[in-house]
């Protein structure tokens, strides 16, 4: 499809939907207060596009097809994202007014089902993590990290150490949100670099801890797929310094039922329901986060809490030490129900199978990728990996000048995703693959074949790769349009002004001068 921007499809006067009209009595009531409203009345209707309903449908269905969902491709190239199967039955289950049309403040008696599902999911995640209590309030993994750092802050404050403990330690292969959230919560961030083998450096940690240490915030296995086998010692060192230890389990997929946060002594951990627990990635959210904490941190969990009583499930809005609200109400209800259904479809032995097969798939993939000339898996040479691997095309780049990013774009011509990694590129020319448990051997083989094909192209026909994509709706994008303030256009109206009004957008046009 070569589908225009929706504003270009507008025909004045067309309607997409008709709206309930005020009854005469309501119109009359409005008339009585119209004076009060007069200064607020919008002079002209907003310049939204005007389309008949079928054209709206056609527009969005067409552009939907210009998208590569996990349902469509062998989605093992978005490493660290845990692209797994989101079961369709869970979609069927959630699409009932009995969930979609619940208001969080309605009669508790009319909410017993959803409260029970939340409570049961909390229980399951407590068991999976070994922790004491769980909150499902947050809307994503980073938000759960925020909730955790906020609880850490409140914990130290409650001990009178709020002022003193102002440092958070993390590692470079932990997810960037750990560093970012700690900073946003007012902490100084200390980032540890890996040791020579790519494992987190325990000596660096010893050097970093101090009475200022508020917490260690760490991912394990890290984005490299390497499991930090000294994790319990890491936690101990921080505990001995009076700090807390928070475990980023955004991606716990490879260790479900194998090892638990509690076993290594963590005080807090979090999960992403949209990774490990299969809720769909939804073009980038909504996700959902679970924060799990030990008994001593439990009083600090966000409000409200769901409690089971003999009379049924009740909501406790109290929680004196609670950090209060991190997010509205109870959390992303559709995702909590999906995650619950996923857990109940698998059970304890199923969850263990998930972990085992994900790890099998990952090491199988590793063995195949290593055979592609020009590809390598830095760090921990000869070791197995858990859930994912950060690979490198450095050798191919040296041979051909083709970068990992260029290979990624060319992969899209084969209908496959491909992701490099978060900045900074510690691994040169990185690419990160994570097959999860959802893809069959055949599909993994298919993916590797495409990868090998592109690597061959890079050697034999580098221009073909460099000028990709060739098979997509659009062609190579000019990145300067996105980074230059004079050229960027973040809305259609802005684009019209900047490119067609003849007047350059300047600050002078804006209604306010700042600071």
């Amino acid at each position: 499809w070569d589908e225009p921007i929706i504003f270009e499809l507008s025909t004045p006067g067309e309607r997409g939907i008709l709206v309930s009209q005020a009854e005469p009595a309501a119109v009359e009531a409005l008339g009585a207060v119209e004076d009060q409203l007069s200064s607020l009345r919008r002079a002209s209707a907003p310049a939204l596009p005007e389309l008949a309903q079928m054209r709206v449908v056609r527009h969005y269905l067409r552009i939907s097809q210009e998208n590569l969902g996990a349902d469509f491709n062998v989605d093992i190239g978005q490493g660290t994202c845990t692209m797994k199967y989101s079961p369709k039955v869970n979609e069927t289950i959630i699409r009932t007014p009995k969930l979609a049309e619940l208001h969080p403040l309605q009669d508790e008696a009319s909410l017993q089902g959803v409260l029970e599902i939340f409570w049961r999911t909390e229980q399951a995640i407590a068991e999976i993590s070994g922790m004491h209590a769980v909150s499902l309030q947050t809307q994503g993994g980073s938000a759960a990290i925020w909730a955790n750092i906020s609880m850490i802050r409140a914990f130290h404050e409650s001990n009178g150490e709020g002022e003193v403990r102002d440092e958070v330690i993390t590692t470079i292969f932990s997810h960037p949100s750990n560093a970012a959230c700690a900073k946003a919560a007012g902490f100084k961030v200390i980032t540890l670099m890996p040791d020579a083998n790519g494992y987190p450096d325990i000596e660096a940690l010893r050097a970093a801890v101090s009475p200022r240490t508020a917490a260690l915030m760490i991912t394990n296995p890290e984005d490299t797929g390497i499991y930090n086998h000294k994790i319990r010692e890491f936690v101990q060192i921080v505990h001995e310094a009076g700090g807390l230890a928070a475990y980023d389990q955004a991606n716990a997929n490879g260790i479900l039922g194998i090892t638990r946060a509690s076993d290594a002594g963590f005080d807090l951990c979090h999960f992403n329901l949209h990774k490990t627990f299969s809720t769909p990635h939804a073009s980038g959210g909504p996700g959902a986060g679970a924060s799990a904490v030990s008994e001593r941190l439990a009083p600090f969990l966000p409000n409200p809490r769901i409690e089971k009583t003999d009379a049924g499930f009740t909501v406790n809005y109290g929680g004196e030490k609670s950090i209060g609200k991190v997010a509205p109400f109870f959390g992303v209800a559709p995702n909590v129900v999906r995650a619950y259904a996923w857990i109940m479809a698998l059970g304890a032995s199923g969850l263990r199978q998930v972990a085992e097969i994900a790890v099998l798939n990952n090491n199988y993939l590793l063995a195949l990728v290593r055979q592609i000339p020009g590809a390598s898996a830095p760090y921990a040479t000869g070791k197995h990996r858990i859930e994912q691997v950060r690979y490198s095309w450095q050798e191919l780049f040296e041979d051909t000048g083709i970068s990992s990013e260029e290979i990624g774009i060319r992969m899209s011509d084969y209908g496959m995703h491909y992701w490099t990694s978060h900045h900074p590129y510690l691994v040169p020319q990185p690419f990160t693959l994570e097959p999860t448990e959802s893809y069959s051997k055949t599909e993994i083989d298919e993916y590797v074949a495409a990868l090998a094909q592109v690597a061959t192209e890079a050697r034999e026909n580098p221009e073909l790769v460099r000028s990709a994509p060739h098979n997509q709706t659009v062609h190579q994008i000019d990145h300067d349009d996105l980074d230059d303030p004079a050229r960027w256009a973040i809305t259609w109206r802005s684009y019209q002004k900047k490119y067609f009004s003849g007047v350059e957008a300047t600050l002078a046009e804006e209604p306010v001068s700042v600071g």
Partner: protein
Amino acid sequence: MQNSTVHPYIPNTVPSVIEEMLAVTGATSIEDFYEDIPQSLRVKGLLNLPEPFLAEAELEEHVTGLLNKNRSTREVISFLGAGVYNHYVPSVVDEVINRSEFLTAYAGEPYEDHGRFQALFEYTSMMGELLNMDVVNVPTYDGMQATATALAMAGRITGRSKIIVASDTNPDLVSKVTDYVRSHTELVFVPSVNGLVDTAALAARLDADTAAVWIQTPSFHGGLETSGQVIADLAHEAGALLVVGTDPIAYGSITPPADWGADIVCGEIQSLGIHQWFGGGRGGFIAVHDDPKFIMEMPSRLFGLASTSVEGEYGFGDVAWDRTSFALREEGKEWVGTAAALWGIAAGVYLASMGPTGMSDLGNTVLARTAYAQAQLAGIDGVSLGDSAAHFREFVLDLSASGKTAAEVVTALRALNIEPGVVIGEHNLLVCVTERITTAHIDTLVSALTDFLKEK
């Protein structure tokens, strides 16, 4: 028991496939892959979880059975709001966002995920029209986060550390904002007068430390702020920013805050085509003018139009990616992660379906029915309105004169299948009227409340 352990969600549980794959890896068993995990950290045996429902039919029956214990707002007359609104969701919205293409996509590049970028660019563009502003973010988690971030941005932009809270504000929102900004910024509260901002008191509190004046319109109580221009001028004179929290659904019929001087406008998009979802269907927007000073302080993703190697073709991409935490970790602005993209697409489809006339009609219908509800309810003996400001969708009933508490009213009316509102004080009820509440529904409420207050 199933006569097979091969799970539909895990294809490679087929035993012969496992053997084949192990052979390629050189491992003798899956246990080898866990060599780095010390035995002392291992779970012994299986986790203690309930028996699963392996047959899909039984799983569906179990979970649906639990959900069927709920009674939805479709089964009662619901005047509940306070942050979650029962607006109608056009069917085209669900049709689009339930498509596997959007539902299961994630973080692809602007090439293979062109459609996702386009849908979100269109969403931000339509929001821009509604708000009369040039820059709108790809949705953050929710309106609470958007507001907290907007205020944190104000602190960074001005280099100041005080925020004046001038409107009646949802206490949950205040809690969130406090948690979020308190490391850097202090909140100062200026009580409202008759439901709206006390501009004189506000003027008195503004000083050189003030990063922003934060107002909400419609306020927590549904009041529509009428002194916007005055407040904006006061803030700007003091070198502070005006941050306006709002619900975009009003702006088909109401002048948007940018027109009277708002610097940052933020809020929640749940009203725009997202079901109530037990309070869990949310997306936050932050809108600013096209000023790099503001834009570079936004932590969320921003999608922009880009030219491509083909003349006249539109591409899309991330604007100023390097401001984000993805690029800069703790040096980035706050953080960015999986947020609420699908709800953004939903809101886009909503606005595209509604168009200017739909949004204008909707605003008028809500205003009219709100006015009708206020007038009818205030006509009941013992009931008065919390203030005399103009309201959109929500207003407060004061029941003091009736001798009944708000909680008693709620309990009594629930028995009649009416949720009359949210208790926000001993004698105060926050009543919400969306376009799904007709005058007939309101009449039912009036008559039930009248009857109840007459009792005893």
